[in-house]
């Protein structure tokens, strides 16, 4: 089944709405001196808006999930998505951990290691 005109229009309208929603959210946040909505709310809602738009475009523009069995397109997308999550979440986690460990001066680090019995 190829894309119908309805799917393209729906995908376009949905994406415009989701984009404008993000724009309004950020504009409001900046106008209220970054106090309202809160930073956490911003981060989560922007990510959610992006993921929803991702699926809207993947399904309505790129035809994800439309393949008959075996669903190779869907499976490879899920696999790529898994790799992406590992790369992004893994990098953020590791670098955050490194930054935390590197917070102190070398003398402080040495003192800490002596305390913990590692040296």
């Amino acid at each position, binding site marked *: 089944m190829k*894309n119908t005109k309805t799917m393209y229009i729906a995908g376009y309208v949905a994406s415009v709405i989701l984009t404008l929603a993000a*724009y309004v959210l*950020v504009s409001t946040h900046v106008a209220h001196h970054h106090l309202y909505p809160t930073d956490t709310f*911003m981060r989560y809602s922007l990510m959610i808006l992006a993921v929803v738009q*991702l699926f809207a475009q993947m399904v309505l523009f790129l035809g994800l999930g439309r393949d008959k069995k075996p669903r190779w397109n869907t499976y490879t997308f899920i696999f790529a998505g898994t790799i992406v999550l590992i790369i992004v979440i893994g990098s953020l986690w590791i670098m955050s951990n490194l930054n935390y460990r590197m917070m102190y001066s070398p003398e402080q680090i040495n003192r800490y290691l002596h305390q913990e019995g590692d040296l």
Partner: protein
Amino acid sequence: MSTNAEIKEQNEQKTLFGFWVYLMTDIVLFASLFATFAVLRNNTFGGPNGEELFNINFVLAETLILLTSSFTCGAAMLAAHDKQKKEVMIWLGITFLLGLAFLGLEINEFHHLAAEGHSWRQSAFLSSFFTLVGTHGAHITVGLIWMGTMMYRVYQAGLNAMNLKRLTMLSMFWHFLDVIWIFIFTVVYMMGISG
């Protein structure tokens, strides 16, 4: 025993699937660039951060232009399946112009930043920004070259099976670029501006 038509159909499915897998690997490439940007976004080396550098209205314009071009590309595909050669040329032409406008705006932004001294050499943040957004821009450029080529091929040879297959892959590529832009728009610009 498969008929000739069935074999051709299967081969086309395989080609399209192969292109889809390529797009999946491109997603992984962009993911690594995104991860790098996410890690380095606050490493401004005393220089300006996203909030100070990015203009939300400018970015919205870029985004809506690229989004519209994704839609017009879809319209071209619909015309292609209806074997409407002239409509295909028109819709592809509009898609091309919108893509060119997007690229122009982006190059303008890059030039403006570099001219003010905020080049990729100023900080890790800017380094990762230019790499991520620049790679996307490079993909757009290649897509535009491909689009120009396809417009020429369709004009010369019409909407034969080969051109239809190639147009399908081009439209997949173009939609994919807009998908990546969703995240550049969100992670780089929206999250950067909201701080």
